[in-house]
């Protein structure tokens, strides 16, 4: 059967591969990174305030660099479908459709890992128009830098009513609503002076009047350096603030600062990622564009940021609530039991318990759970 000595090389490689495959697939040798369990929920009522203590157990069979974040939420929401605007019939402004497609692919994977129960799809301008008209509750991510004219223009505004009705709009790019693009236009034809551009009126049309400081690009601050409690808790990477909303305005509208903060002076301070409530819905604004692949503000890490935001419950978090956050570095076979003590403020219906491992952890373990305010004794 073996007529040439080099056939042994082929056989040896095949055997090594098969051993690798068996080791990886076989239930006995298949490794698990560890486990996360909620052991108990206890509700206590004192004179001044109600508290809830959540006891959990973290076990590591591989070294884990894990963080547990517990977010008090106003209203529990099912995982919404996620649509990423992708339509090559329209131009992008100062970015590329490639990055948008990469964002969707990575986000889909990141959400699947975290047990997000709905799909992430690409949607073109016509599909988004349909979603907005039907007021479908969804997360829509616009990262091409401009609105297509069928969604927002001088004559049309399908965006605001949809957000008001419960939609979640995620925006990357120049000032939201500034540029409007028509079908068939080319990226190189986009200018600041195009007649269809809404310019400063765009943000006004979307209910964000006064949120932005319209400066020359050279005068804009670029990078936010001060972490916020939520950016620390969820390890949010995105840090660009060239076109980010002003911090004071975000707070004034009961919004949340998810990213890092920075800027020239206290009144001009901005947040690299913000949530701004709008009617029943929300607008999540990233402070600038998606950058090149494999960079700090590129599509891969932006997908991580978005997955953290969508899975941790911060979208349902109230501005006066405080998250619980605890990080652990567990060695192999180590078990950690811990208890989180949370204040139950009026309007809080429960807690999202979210466990994740950092991007540099040896073991990869994600866990999500919802604990209702009524659980426990």
């Amino acid at each position: 059967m073996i007529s040439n000595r080099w056939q042994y090389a082929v056989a040896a490689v095949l055997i090594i591969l098969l051993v690798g495959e068996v080791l990886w697939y076989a239930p006995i040798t298949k490794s698990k990174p560890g486990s996360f369990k909620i052991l108990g929920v206890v509700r206590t009522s004192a004179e001044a305030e109600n508290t809830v203590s959540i006891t959990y157990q973290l076990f590591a069979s591989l070294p884990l660099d894990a963080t547990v974040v517990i977010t008090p939420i106003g209203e529990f929401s099912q995982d919404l479908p996620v649509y990423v605007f992708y339509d090559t019939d329209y131009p992008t402004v100062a970015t590329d459709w490639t990055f948008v497609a990469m964002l969707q692919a990575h986000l889909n994977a990141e959400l699947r890992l975290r047990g997000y129960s709905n799909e992430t799809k690409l949607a073109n301008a016509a599909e988004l128009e349909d979603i907005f008209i039907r007021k479908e509750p969804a997360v829509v991510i616009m990262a091409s830098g401009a609105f297509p004219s069928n969604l927002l223009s001088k004559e049309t505004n399908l965006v605001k009513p949809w957000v008001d009705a419960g939609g979640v709009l995620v925006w990357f790019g120049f000032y939201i609503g500034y540029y409007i693009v028509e079908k068939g236009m080319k990226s190189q034809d986009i200018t600041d002076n195009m007649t269809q551009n809404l310019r400063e009126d765009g943000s006004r049309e979307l209910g964000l009047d006064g949120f932005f400081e319209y400066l020359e690009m050279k005068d804009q601050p670029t990078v936010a350096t001060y972490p916020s409690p939520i950016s620390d808790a969820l390890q949010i990477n995105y840090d660009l603030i060239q076109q980010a909303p002003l911090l004071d305005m975000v707070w004034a509208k009961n919004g949340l600062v998810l990213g890092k903060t920075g800027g020239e002076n206290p009144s001009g301070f901005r947040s690299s990622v913000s949530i701004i409530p709008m009617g029943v819905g929300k607008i999540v604004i990233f402070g600038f564009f998606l950058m090149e692949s494999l960079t700090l503000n590129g599509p891969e890490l932006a997908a991580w940021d978005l997955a953290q935001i969508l899975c941790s419950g911060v979208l349902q978090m109230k501005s006066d609530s405080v998250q619980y956050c605890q990080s652990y570095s567990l060695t192999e076979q180590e078990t950690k039991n811990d208890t989180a003590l949370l204040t139950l403020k009026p309007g809080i219906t429960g807690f999202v318990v979210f466990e994740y491992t950092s991007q540099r952890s040896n073991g990869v373990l994600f866990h999500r759970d919802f604990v209702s305010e009524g659980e426990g004794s």
Partner: protein
Amino acid sequence: MKRSISLIRRLFTHELSGFLILGLLLRIVLMPYFIWPYDIGAYQSALAYLMSGNDPYAVHASIYPPFVHFITYPLFRLAYQLGVSFDFHSIQEVLTGTRSGELVANLQVSPLFLILWKVPLLCFDLLTGILIYCFVKSLVPDSKMAKRCFLIWLFNPFTLAVSYLNGSYDIVVGFFILLGAFFLFKGNYFSAGLSFGLGTLAKTSPIFVAIPLSIIVLFTGLRNSFHSFDLRTNAGRFLKFAVGCIVPIVFFAPLFIEYANLMYSGISKEVSILGGLNQWFFAADQNRSYLLNQHIGVIQTVFSYYPAICFALALFLSWILELKRESALLSIALFTGLMYLFLPITLQPQYLLWIMPLLVVLSCRWRSLIWSIGIFSVAGFFFYMSLQGPQTFLYPLAMYTRLYSPQELISNIVSYQNSQGIISQYLRQDLSIIFGGIGFLGQIVTMALLIRNMRRTKNDIE
């Protein structure tokens, strides 16, 4: 016992022993302290996912097919059981020394990780050298030629850079394409197919060579239908070749399907022209790369004609090739080169390793191919060094030795990246254009030489 001693004695007195030991030492020196800093993040992440029971394609951590993972998994698993840690280590200087938005390369792995990662590369690299030696010996009677070809391989700075500076697994593909060619030359069709199948598990490219090759196997001798064309014999060979190709892919189907889905869903929309021989001209200039990305549809349409072009060409080659086996070797090189010109994905200089071993072997019969090897080696090596400067490979050296400090490394890399150019805005763009241009020229020259040599071989037959 006597037999073993005799074998060991023969090993040490072999004409290659000294060079092999020297080559091995050189490689061992390069293994622990050099890596392409961005790829190692993907390698470590993929391994973390594998060790955690997730597939390595879970978050696009890896774009390598299953081969690399199934071969490294037992190795790393064993090392892990022995207490070796594979943590990422952060270089603080990178975070503070670079602007936001620049490439993230602040995470690195230990030298031990790099050694383990490169052990399979070392094996395939040395096997390739030995196979080149054996192959050349069976092609030409001149034993000095076999040694010369072996040395061209063993001490070629470009091949060393791909496996030990970059840490890329393209040598595995190069080895299996060469092994497939070797078996085909020896008339062992099943093993040839098996080699191309295993190569496909390492990177999908060998299948694009195997398909036209199978057409040649099926229709060889078509012109002389009354004399040498024997459909029954050809069909038998074709079947053996095709089954050989399919076996490894079927064996590792679950993860291979995951991989195919990932490529289809994620990568198909992504023609990130950030490297690649036939697109190097565009790569160096951001404006033109942007232009090219805008025409992804055109690139993909052109690629969709690749099977038809291959089919027509393979049929034509079957028509003219007769049964001369050396001509079949030239056609393997031709299809490997053609694939390089057609692939609508990110093409990088290390992919030259798919064709290099075959060119080294073929240069023993067709000396003019030395030009191709020379051009590819120079262009590939210097293109690598031009992209972000030679210092980009030195992160582990700066982090784990006192030979170089991370501060120095970062400031030198940033200073190189900002060096002004003459033709373009930056020096790195100028250098990429120059060496990319040379590489592109190398491709054209190689295609021309292969076709010319085919015509000569055909004339020899006539």
